[in-house]
């Protein structure tokens, strides 16, 4: 009963909080999205659907649309094909080294996909690709083994970095299903295979489908990998096409009209996914971790491990290896001999003014966005959790809403909204700050929400009744308890910001480049050594922050682990 009781009457205090947060959220979401919708239908003589007509009649844009659908569907499917078996193996069986596997999946999860795409250019480019050269020297063949600059190549590279979404959904669901349910079927005479097919699979089906949808959404919104792999192959996806529409002369109306369908598709898919998860009529899912017994794999133990390692080799070992090699080589395609060894890439990267400036910009934006974002998210989560003001549900909804906005679409909207009075922010770091803050708000809010949900209101009330005022309770009881959760939120946002490409690529100007944009530029110049150095730097920062976050949360970033106890 206490859960539904509004804790304090705060009508008097609600006004400033409301105005402040409502204004912030409006500036971040409603204004840009309003401009986006308006721009997509504005003509010289009032409202028009001409832009939409042109977008859908243009054969090149039609092609891009179709390519996006193909890419999203197949990479979603491939993600399920990779993620589901690994999740089952690591959650349910006696697979060896399952902790190490989980760590590697996390590495794949936090690797910026565009870095992976670069690495795979170096690994499987048709001519200079390392694996292709190896293949040719071993077999004497003329043709390359793989050509990464193809649609299948693109699908492969996208899938090896999106399968963790499927893995998370399924592993966390499997962790909640008691073995009894499976054993009940075994005792009735079902074979192990049949149990998996008729009991386990139907129970995780919603998780599989929702993992598929999450992967599709990732692929839909992705800019980096298609830009790196599809453009040289001569085809576009929606995101790269929107980006191309900004090339001189910019066709902003067209970009807006092209963005709206992408936005609607994303919103629709997320709605479906929410429905799927909401319909958990499965009594066993959602309880506390029930008794689980590992299924023995027998002779399949090591082949299964090898399969997992092969996937993770493609996602982690090979790309990281080639980046490390390129970082220390004069010519990345040549063998790493003493003559080929150099530190010049490092000095170039950190001393060259353009890259230096980008590193500074990225760190500034990362720290600023993380501080403001974590603060705002904590405030919002506190207000909504303690039901402090009327209409708190609306605030929660607004904070989560940007999850449906792909980075590229957000950038188009912000570009339109902030290149005109009263907000002339284009060309400054502030427009990037707003983009990042908006994009990271759903993650930040969910994280903070979980934090405050874990702090029982009675802990605060116990302080009040003993004589502490509201602010004193906030300072001496709530803040210390929420501290590690808020720092973890900070980390989540920081990681998200330093790797952001799809919005930055549209919003940057020569003075406001960030690391991801510079990496993208350096590729045009063929500076693979410098790319590798920046990539390693970015990964090192990411892993340092992830490690800090895991220590604070007492769990890894992939979500609840079966054995994990109640984390603060």
């Amino acid at each position, binding site marked *: *009963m*206490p859960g*539904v*009781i*509004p*804790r*304090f*009457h705060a009508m008097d205090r609600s006004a400033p909080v409301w105005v402040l947060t409502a204004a912030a959220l409006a500036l971040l979401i409603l204004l840009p999205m309003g401009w986006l919708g308006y721009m997509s239908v504005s003509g010289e003589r009032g409202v028009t659907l001409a832009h939409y007509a042109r977008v859908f009649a243009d054969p090149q844009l039609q092609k891009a649309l179709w390519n996006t659908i193909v890419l999203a569907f197949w990479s979603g499917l491939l993600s399920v094909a990779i993620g589901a078996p690994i999740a089952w193996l690591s959650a349910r069986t006696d697979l060896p080294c399952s902790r190490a596997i989980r760590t590697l999946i996390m590495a794949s999860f936090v690797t910026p996909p565009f870095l992976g795409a670069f690495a795979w250019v170096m690994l499987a480019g048709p001519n200079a690709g390392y694996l292709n050269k190896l293949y040719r020297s071993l077999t004497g063949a003329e043709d390359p083994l793989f050509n990464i600059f193809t649609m299948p190549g693109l699908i492969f590279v996208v899938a090896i970095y999106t399968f963790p979404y499927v893995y998370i959904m399924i592993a966390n669901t499997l962790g909640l299903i008691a073995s009894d349910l499976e054993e009940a079927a075994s005792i009735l005479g079902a074979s192990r295979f049949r149990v998996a097919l008729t009991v386990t699979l139907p129970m995780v089906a919603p998780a599989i489908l929702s993992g598929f949808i999450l992967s599709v959404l990732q692929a839909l919104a992705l800019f980096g990998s298609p830009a790196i792999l599809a453009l040289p192959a001569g085809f576009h996806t929606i995101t790269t096409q929107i980006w191309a529409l900004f090339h001189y002369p910019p066709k902003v109306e067209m970009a807006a009209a092209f963005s709206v369908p992408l936005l609607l598709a994303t919103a629709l898919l997320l709605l479906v996914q929410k429905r799927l998860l909401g319909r958990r009529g499965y009594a066993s899912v959602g309880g506390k971790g029930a008794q689980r017994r590992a299924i023995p794999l027998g002779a399949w133990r090591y082949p299964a491990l090898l399969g997992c390692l092969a996937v993770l080799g493609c996602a982690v070992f090979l790309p990281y290896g080639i980046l490390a090699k390129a970082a220390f080589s004069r010519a990345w395609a040549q063998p790493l001999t003493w003559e080929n060894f150099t530190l010049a890439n490092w000095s170039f990267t950190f001393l060259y003014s353009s890259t230096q400036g980008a590193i500074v910009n990225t760190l500034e934006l990362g720290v600023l966005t993380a501080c403001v974002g974590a603060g705002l998210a904590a405030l919002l989560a506190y207000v909504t959790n303690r039901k402090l003001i009327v209409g708190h549900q609306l605030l929660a909804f607004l904070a989560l809403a940007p999850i449906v906005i792909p980075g590229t679409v957000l950038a188009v909207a912000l570009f339109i909204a902030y290149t005109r009075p009263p907000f002339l922010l284009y060309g400054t770091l502030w427009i990037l700050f707003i983009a990042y803050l908006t994009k990271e708000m759903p993650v930040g809010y969910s994280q903070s929400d979980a934090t405050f949900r874990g702090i*029982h209101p*009675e*802990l605060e*009330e*116990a*302080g*009040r*009744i*003993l*004589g*502490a*005022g*509201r602010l*004193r309770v906030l300072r001496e*009881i709530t803040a*210390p*308890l929420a501290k590690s959760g808020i720092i973890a939120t900070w980390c989540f946002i920081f990681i998200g910001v330093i790797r952001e490409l799809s919005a930055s690529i549209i919003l940057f100007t020569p003075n406001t480049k960030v690391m991801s944009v510079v990496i993208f530029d350096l590729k045009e110049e063929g500076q693979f050594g410098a790319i590798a150095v920046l990539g390693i730097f970015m990964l090192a920062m990411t892993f340092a922050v992830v490690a800090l976050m895991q220590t604070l949360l007492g769990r890894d970033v992939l979500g609840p682990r079966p054995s994990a106890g109640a984390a*603060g």
Partner: protein
Amino acid sequence: MPGVTIRGLSKRYGDVAAVLGLELRVEPGELVALLGPSGCGKTTTLRLVAGFLKPEAGEIWVGERCLSSPAAVVPPERRRMAMIFQSYALWPHMTVDQNVAYGLRLAGTPRADRDRRVTDILKAVQLEGYGSRYPGELSGGQQQRVAVARALVVEPEILLLDEPLSNLDANLREEMRFEIRRLHETFAITTLYVTHDQAEAMVISDRVAVLQDGRVVQVGTAEELFERPRTRFVAEFIGKTNLIDGVADGTGTVARGRLRLRVASTDLTPGAPVAVSIRPHQIELAPRALPGAPAPPDANVLAGTVVRASYLGDGVDYQVRIEESDVVLRVAGPAPPRVRLGESVSVSVASGACVPLPSGGG
């Protein structure tokens, strides 16, 4: 030491009235339990007294101070109260000492005095030597004691307890009932105790206030409530009982079909619907075949058949069908059983044990 007076207190959540015109007086130094099923408004009442909620109507007075009214609510931190929560609400980032000393620190108690009082109270709740532990390192029962110590150490005017024992296992719960009663006898703080467990309320409190739909329906000692319930709801909620619906056919008798019962009242209105409450342990069974002891003159003696008998070790739980009626009585008989399943029995109940209740509402 002040008492608490609650007058006409009301609180709504949307369209639902949680508390509706509640009246209650707690004497200085008295422990009153607010007892009722979930949703009866007992926790809301406690939170209103604590000042976490603002009433829509009514007033809460402590001694000469009016603490809550629709016009003004003194905030919780200025009420000189202490509260023990269902979740204990121990701060996990503070040690036992820090938890207990928090209220004293807020009150500006000097360091030496503070340390002494913390040590004393920890001794009183049998937690000597646990001061440097964190709450996470204690068992449920120990956490409970820390919560009690934290509330008592500030020497509050009023102590509020919100189902403090509901998270403990059955054995510990029973033990803590006596512990809380012992502490109350030691410190004699005016106390409001919320619970849904009638046994707990009866053991711990001086008086019990039974709540139903946001109102106090009866206040009294455990004995009064059990022996002389004033409504059907109280009779059913406090202990097990048999309820027989009938009609008064005289000032002191109630009829149901051919069954007539003399009851513990002589001022019934003939023709009025009346329910009669009979406690299972106040019914005596004897084999009809044997000439039993002569029944007292005011007893109701009925003929019945045992239709169920469950042996419980310390007693026998019977169901007896009363002949020539549709009434089946629950009877708590002594062990070893004197009558058997299927046996014809004579059922005797003193008229004083047949409590007439207004039939309709509640």
